[in-house]
């Protein structure tokens, strides 16, 4: 008996989002099949891989990471170097120094740093929030203003602060935003509804559905991403159709496996390799669940995940 394929395609699709300045923009989303189901229908755009840098610079205690960023000392140099990582589709900036629980750098200064990074980067830019709704509400509009013409994605528009961020970033300065909810499928939809009700059109926002490292309550995140994707496609729910961006690096490098020293746990091997493996396993699972983009810190993780995507799409 011959095999007769029965493709499972959907009448609806994930919305496309393009970001980055003219001539250097990338587009993602657009697919009408489940993640990597390229046998059902061609995948419109492959999932993207972002490389994350921080205004505090790379962790130079990790030998391979230090070697990659060797000679790159200013933030501009670090940004330019990150863009050379094989497989990186976009640059992701974490403005750690602006965190009110840390150095609490003024928003104007942080926005100026974002501008420096954007100017030094040949890749489209995404800026992450500082995980503080009040600071993000102040910081992200300033970043939006500083990045005029860069068509960047500004993450972390949450239920508490989305209005100001949406107005400043999208309406006033033509940037894109990320609607962030914390592993809550109903809130994810609600936030998109609220953003749409402000007159922000599809194509101008992505979803950030939460983050977690593999092994750390990760199944909640994976099932949330998966359920969002299935409802977006099978129920043609346009309030769930923006592409999903999942920042993986922060969690992957904050868990015990990536932090404890080799001296304390010799049987676990080198710390850097463990961190890379946490990033890779988490990112691969996010992509399989339906993330349209992941953000990683280590160039080795970026390269591996980019290769995985290239093989599957």
């Amino acid at each position, binding site marked *: 008996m011959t095999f007769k394929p029965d493709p499972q395609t959907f009448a609806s699709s994930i919305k496309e989002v393009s970001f980055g300045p003219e001539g250097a923009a990338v587009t993602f989303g657009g697919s009408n099949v489940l993640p990597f189901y390229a046998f059902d229908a061609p995948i419109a755009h492959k999932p993207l891989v972002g490389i994350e840098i921080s205004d505090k610079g790379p962790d130079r205690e990790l030998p391979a990471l230090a070697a990659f960023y060797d000679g790159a000392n200013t933030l501009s140099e670090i940004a330019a170097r990150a863009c050379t990582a094989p497989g990186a589709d976009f640059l992701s900036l974490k403005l750690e120094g602006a965190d009110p629980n840390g150095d609490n750098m003024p928003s104007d200064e942080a926005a100026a740093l974002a501008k420096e990074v954007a100017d030094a980067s040949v890749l489209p830019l995404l800026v992450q929030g500082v995980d503080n709704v009040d600071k993000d509400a102040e910081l992200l509009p300033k970043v939006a203003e500083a990045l005029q013409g860069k068509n960047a994605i500004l993450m972390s528009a949450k239920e508490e602060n989305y209005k100001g961020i949406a107005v400043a970033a999208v309406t006033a300065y033509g940037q894109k935003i990320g609607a962030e909810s914390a592993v809550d499928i109903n809130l994810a939809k609600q936030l998109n509804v609220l953003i749409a009700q402000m007159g922000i059109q599809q194509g101008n926002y992505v979803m950030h559905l939460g983050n977690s490292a593999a092994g750390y309550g990760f199944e909640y995140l994976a099932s949330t991403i998966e359920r969002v994707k299935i409802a977006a496609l099978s129920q043609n*729910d346009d309030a769930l159709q923006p592409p999903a961006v999942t920042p993986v690096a922060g969690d992957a490098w904050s868990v015990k496996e990536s932090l404890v020293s080799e001296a304390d746990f010799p049987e676990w091997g080198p710390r850097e390799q463990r961190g890379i493996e946490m990033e890779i396993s988490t990112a691969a699972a996010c992509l399989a669940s339906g993330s349209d983009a992941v953000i990683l810190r280590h160039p080795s993780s970026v390269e591996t995940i980019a290769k995985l995507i290239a093989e599957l799409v």
Partner: protein
Amino acid sequence: MDKFIIIGERIHCISPVIKEALANRDEAPILERAKAQLDSGATYLDLNIGPAERDGEELMQWGVKLLQENFDNVPLALDTANQKAIVAGIEVYNRSKGKPIINSADAGDRLDNIRLAAENDAIVIALCSKQGVPRDNEERMQYCQEMLEYGMGLGLDESDMWFDPLTLVIKGMQEKQVEFLEFIRQLSDMGLMSVAGLSNASNGMPKEVRPTVDSVLTAMAIECGLSAAILNPNDKHLMDVVKTAEVILNRTLYADSYLEL
């Protein structure tokens, strides 16, 4: 289970405003009602031009073009006893948003409308009755089978026949309501599409009672598997009930603003 399909009933020649607008080819009142219904969640619009024996063909074409050109090729149910008018309407109908629905056929005098659907690649609403009210569900099923066989014999896909169990007025036929719901369940179990004009059930009741009756019956019918209904999408209470039923049946994801969508 697919989402519940709403066919907006408000462009109907029984309404004096619409009757006059149709007669005078007055666009404004028709467009106004069309917009109101689409804004409130109608997927299809019913275009009832009455018997239209004199100028039905020209009138239907005018109505189809008016609605589709103004509302992004909105899919329509062409509702008239005049077969020529239906064919004329289909001639100018744009299918990009869905096939036309012929409203309606039955197992008796109007059986021929099933042939019309088959010949024109249309959907047909098939009333499970022949003469008057079916006695019981056995009779309903017999008509359903007759029409199904007839349609499929003509090459009509079974998913293009939407069976109407015939809604019965509660005041006077209260004892028939459970059977009505059971028949919807039978159609659903057979994998057939079903459609009903549910507001008939509250005919003759006081105005203040009707919305409650209509919405409760609608919720019960949806639970039984009803695929579509011809109703008034501008009845907010009724639409809220439909949306809530969809949430409870897990066909649409809950969000706090779900009633605004």
